[in-house]
């Protein structure tokens, strides 16, 4: 991608995503952390648009910003006495070291490998092809995913059902 608009959009959204992720890790209050997390998710949606992944970008906004961030907020306000602190435990320095080593190894691998690149242009609308693939080649995983979601929702309901709410009540 060489055109100026794509380059500017990439650097803008990359800074937004990584900067907000650093903010998530650094903010003291969990509510603020979720706010930064939403900004990070939005930056990722922008990065998906620069990669011409329009369907995934919309799914990112709908599912991560619309559902998962709100779900995390619910969990925070449902545990009020536990405190909103986002501080680190005694594992802080080993975690910094391990995360740093992981990032360094992955960046080294990304820069050192000779990737087999294609020079095709960006996709022209991906939703049709993805829909065909989901109902044709990936039909079985698609159905399994729907069962998984059903089981997860039922499991979440059963787990947080109030004490003493037995059958028939």
């Amino acid at each position, binding site marked *: *991608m060489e055109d100026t608009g*794509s*380059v500017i959009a*990439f650097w803008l959204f*990359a800074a937004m*995503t*990584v900067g907000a992720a*650093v903010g*998530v*890790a650094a903010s003291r209050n*969990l509510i603020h952390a979720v706010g930064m997390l939403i900004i990070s998710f939005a930056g*990722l949606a922008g*990065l998906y648009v620069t*990669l*011409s*992944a329009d369907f*995934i970008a919309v799914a*990112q906004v709908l*599912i*991560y910003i619309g559902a*998962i961030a709100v*779900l*995390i907020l619910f*969990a925070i306000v*449902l*545990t009020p*006495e*536990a*405190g909103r*602190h986002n*501080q*680190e*435990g005694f594992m802080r320095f080993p*975690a*910094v070291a*391990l*995360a*740093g080593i992981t*990032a360094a190894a*992955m*960046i080294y691998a990304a820069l050192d490998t000779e*990737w*087999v690149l*294609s020079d095709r242009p*960006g*996709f022209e609308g*991906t939703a049709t092809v*993805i829909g065909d*693939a*989901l109902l044709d080649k*990936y039909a079985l995983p698609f159905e399994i*995913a729907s069962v*998984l*979601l059903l*089981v*997860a929702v039922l*499991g*979440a*309901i059963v*787990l947080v059902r109030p004490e003493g709410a037995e059958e028939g009540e």
Partner: protein
Amino acid sequence: MDSVDLEHYLIVGSLLFAIGMYMALAKRNFIGVLIGIELMFNAVNLTFISFSRFAESDAPLAGHVFVIFVITVAAAEAAVALALAVLLYRVRETVDVDRIDLLKW
């Protein structure tokens, strides 16, 4: 810096993954750990999409399908894990992972 290639996206994904990994390992609040795991999921998704865009392949959109499945599993994981956090709070009055140590020693 006048063009954006696969490596740029891979570096963004690596940084995001490392930040998520740090949060998942170091945070004391269980919900903070879960936020870190969500960041790691997103880093992996970004890597899938960037390979799907740049790499030579017969079916380049297979990466997008894979990301959809990752998002589905991440949503299921978030629902169950946050239900566990609420349940844990109800039983133990805390979501501090350093104080949930019944199985330790």
